[in-house]
Structure formats: structure tokens, C-alpha cells
């Protein structure tokens, strides 16, 4: 009987010792005031601002350095205008196709396919349908830039994932793919 008590005691002790490991909580820290930053961390909740978020929108009307305001509105007319009038600011020396290919592979190929034939992985798996072959669409580099910036139909805007310059690179790469299809 005594042995039984001892075993129970051992079980209890080990249970207490191991129950402290809770993987849904962060571990203890030695000197938290050296770990925890004094300034606000990215994405943190802060009491200073009215909406409680660290990430604040820039003041209305402000323009980031190096940013060119985009004048075509997100509508069918804007699309047509961009298609007809918008031309790439990049000259042939500035177009970096290997980098554009990388960007295309990350952001576009999952639906549009590596060759732009509309047969990306998501289309093959029938998660996302109706992705056209670039060949079947009358597109210009201006219209590609407009669509990547504003989105079209089911495609969302990719303006927050790609900078303006990167979008132009991708537009050039799309036109290259289209010519090869």
C-alpha cells in the first residue's frame, strides 16, 4: 500500500512539473524589461490613438516619397482610359526581367500560370475559375498595370503587395509572356 502512495506522489509531482509547459502561452523571461520594447511595436495595440492601433493611416492627401499619384479611377472607363493612354515609365534598360519573373511567380502565377496561360495551381485545383489566357485578352502594359493596381472582376488589387515600380516590371513581364503564348 505504501508503494502505491509513493507512486501516486511521484505521478503528482511529475504532473505538477510538466503542467507548467503550456504551448499556447509564451515562456517566462529573465528580464522582461529588456525583452519588451519601450516604443510601440509593429501591429501592437496602443492606448495613444483613438482606434487603438499602432499602424496609423498617413494623413489624408499625403504622398509617400517617390510615389506617383495614379490618375485613372477604378472603373470600366478608367480601365479603358488606362488601356489606351497609360505607358510604362520604365525604359528598356530599367526593365529587369529576371526580377519581374520572380515577382510574377510569387504574385500572379498561382492563378495565371507560369506561362500566363490561365492554368495556375489554384485553377487546376478548381479553387479559382475563369482565369483567362493572356492571349485571349486585348491587353496593353497600361491595362495590366491598371488591373494589378485596381483589380478587375474577381481579381483583387495587388497594390499593397507590389510597389508601383514592381507593378510596372510585372506588366512588362506579362506582355513578354503574352507575346510568347
Amino acid at each position, binding site marked *: 500500500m505504501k508503494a502505491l502512495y509513493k507512486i501516486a506522489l511521484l505521478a503528482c509531482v511529475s504532473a505538477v512539473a510538466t503542467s507548467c509547459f503550456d*504551448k*499556447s502561452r509564451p515562456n517566462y523571461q529573465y528580464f522582461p524589461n529588456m525583452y519588451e520594447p519601450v516604443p510601440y511595436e509593429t*501591429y501592437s*495595440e496602443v492606448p495613444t490613438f483613438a482606434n487603438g492601433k499602432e499602424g496609423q493611416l498617413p494623413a489624408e492627401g499625403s504622398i509617400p516619397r517617390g510615389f506617383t499619384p495614379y490618375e485613372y479611377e477604378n472603373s*470600366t472607363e478608367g480601365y479603358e482610359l488606362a488601356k489606351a493612354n497609360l505607358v510604362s515609365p520604365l525604359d528598356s534598360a530599367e526593365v529587369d526581367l529576371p526580377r519581374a519573373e520572380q515577382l510574377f511567380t510569387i504574385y500572379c502565377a498561382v492563378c495565371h500560370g507560369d506561362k500566363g496561360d490561365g492554368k495556375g495551381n489554384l485553377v487546376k485545383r478548381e479553387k*479559382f475559375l475563369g482565369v483567362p489566357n493572356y492571349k485571349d485578352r486585348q491587353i496593353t502594359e497600361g491595362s495590366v498595370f491598371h488591373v494589378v493596381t485596381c483589380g478587375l472582376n*474577381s481579381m*483583387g488589387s495587388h497594390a499593397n503587395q507590389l510597389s508601383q515600380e514592381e507593378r510596372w516590371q510585372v506588366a512588362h513581364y506579362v506582355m513578354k509572356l503574352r507575346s510568347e503564348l
Partner: protein
Amino acid sequence: MKKVGNHTSFSRILFFCLALSLSFSFASYAQDAAPAADAGQEAAASAGAGDPAKGKELFNSLCAACHKLDAKMTGPALRGVSEKHDREWLYKWVRNSSELIKSGDAAAVKLFAENNNQVMTAFPQLSNEDIDNILAYTSEPAPVVEKKTPGGEPVAQEGGASNNLILGALVLVLLVLIVMLVLVNTTLRKVAAANGVDVSKKGNTISFWQAYARNQFLVLVTSILLLLSGAYFLYGYLMQIGVDQGYEPIQPIHFSHKIHAGENGIDCKYCHSSARVSKTSGIPSLNVCMNCHKNISEFTGSKDSTYVEYSKEFYTAEIQKLYDAVGWDKSAQQYTGKTKPVKWVRIHNLPDFVYFNHSQHVSVAGVECQTCHGPVETFEIMKQNAPLTMGWCINCHRETNVKVEGNDYYKKIHDELAKKYGVQKLTAANMGGTECGKCHY
């Protein structure tokens, strides 16, 4: 000593096994349902004018960008559209809807206004036959699978019940075993008593502990051993303080990296785009989710959905959570403007006294995300894979060769460094990657 992240208890393994067997049974159900749906489609094919199989192909490649069969998307739902409109009118509409609207056709103008004045892409390349095929596809009755789901749900519940049932049965078996052991023990004692054997009496010997206590050498050895092992474990415990390896918090939305990055093969940087260009890898903002989930409003699983660990309803409810947060009205296909933040729990968090820059590692060095974050594409629930300790950083800096090929601008300095250290290939450490000031300042 490393802290082990996952503590697999026996009960958890048991649960896992049950869940596994359950998911297999689900998969087999899904397979049963599929041929039934096909049969339904074939029946409809013989009734309709066009070929619905060809129609489906055309529909998926041309129409599905804006139309779904049973739900409004950019354009209206198309199931049964051939009954709503005259066929000649539909031919005209598909080939060039704008012209039809301009001509002042009442039905066309009304339809245009109903769908927020969205212009439908013209498809002049489609022949009457093609459109007939598409219409044959859209005229198919709603798939049998959907009718089956109400019948399918009780099966799911049954599965849940049987889960508990099996556990209950196991407990019962254990109880019976214990009772049997006690019974056997008492009967054996009775038999011994009847035969005149005294079981409880012990011989006239000193106890084990007394003998042990008298042997001073043994006591010394054990106490030294105890002290050493105690020190070892204490050291191990102290060293893992502040290390969050295996940290796996419960997130407000159950996001499965396994489905997104693994099965669907979406690049890490598609969502974590700022890892390319900034210090922080970034929690994707919800508009990135909506780039795809505007269309994908429910989890459909795939035919080979053995990777699915939760039910379809569960995943669909998680997508609904996203819609609630971003303020997307699924039925109206519009943003309501009522948003609320999703309070994701940060997992990887370096102490404030360390500087780490994602873009430097991802874009400049070309390190794969998985090198530090582990095989995230296999994680159903995201967790911290690496210890993120200084020793771990330094190790990688010492062992990783820097890709200097094709970087002619720094060729001279690279050559000089290689000569200085007498190495063929430069490591990050050779280039100052272990200087204190690189990360601590």
C-alpha cells in the same frame, strides 16, 4: 538541453487516431457522393440541347471569373438563366451586352442596373453552339450532392457520437479489468487462507531502506548522482527560459498554412509581401485574404482531401469570421463598411535588444522562409519552429555560405576576404555576420 515543444499525451494520441479514422470515413463518404453527382449530370445531358460537359469547360474558363451557378458574384447567378430569358436575346447579350443595352432593350437595361452597372466582357468569339453548351451546363439541376448534405450531416453527428462511444467503451473495459484484478486477488487470498498459507506475514528481514541507509558508500554515490542530475536538469530548465520554441497560441481565426501554402502552393511572400522589402515580415492585411476569399466563400475541400483535419463546416465558419472582420456581405457581394480588427497573436518575437531584418535575409541573402520558420506548409496550426536563440543565429551565420556568384560589384572585396580567412567559400560570419554590433546596438 532543448525544451521540447509538443507534449504528446496518451489521450491526445488516442484522439488523433480517432480523428484520423474518422477523417478516412469522411473521405470515403465524399467519394461515394461524387459518382452520384456525375450520374445526375449525365441524366441532365440527355435532356438538354447542348453538351453540358463542353459547356462546363467554357463556363469555367470564360464565365466563372464573374459568375457562379448558385450565388451572386460580380455578375448574377446563372443557374436556370435560359428560362429567364429568350435564347436569341441571350446570344446577343453574351456576344456584346453593351450594344444591347445601348439599343435600349428593356430587359438588358434593367439587368445592367440590377448589377451595379458592371459591364460584362463581350465574347464575340462564341458561336451559338458554344453558348448553347454553356446554357446546357447552367440549366443542369442543382447537384445531387447538395441535396445529400442534409442527409450527410447526421452521419457527421453519428461520427461524433461514435467518437464518444468508443472512448466510453474503452473506459468501461478498463473498469472491468480493474474489477477483475481485485476479484482475482481476493479469491487467491481466500484460496491461500483455506490452504493455511499466511500471505501477509513477512520474514524477519530488515527493510530495503534500512539496509540502504546503513551503507554509507551507496548513500554518497546516490547523493552525488542526484546532485549532478539535479544540476543538469536545473541548467536545462534555466536555459530554456525566454525560449519560445513550440509556442502555438490559439489564433482568432483558424488559418491553416497547410491548406494555403502547402496544398494550394501559394508562395509565402504572396501574403507576407513585406518580408521582401522591410524589416518586419508582416501580418497580411485582410484585403490580401479578400483577394481570393471574395470568390472562395466556402471550403470545398479537394477530391483527395486527406489533408483536411477539420470538417468543411468548420473551415467555412472560419472564412465567415474573415468576412465579419472585413465587413463583407456574402449574399449582397458588397462591403458593409463595418470592420473590426483581427487580433492575431504574435508568435515569433525577438527581444527588443536584437535587431533582425527580414528583407536582408529574404531578398539579399535569398534564405528560404523555411530555414528559420520550419516546414510551415505542413503546419495546420502555426507554431514557432526554431528556438530563435543567439546560438542558433550564430550557428547559421557560421555555416551558411554566402551566394557571391554573379555579384561582380563586390568581387574584389569578396576575393580579399576569402584570401584573408583562407577559405574557398565565404560564410556570413566571415563577412562580419558575428560582430556584436550587427544585431545589438
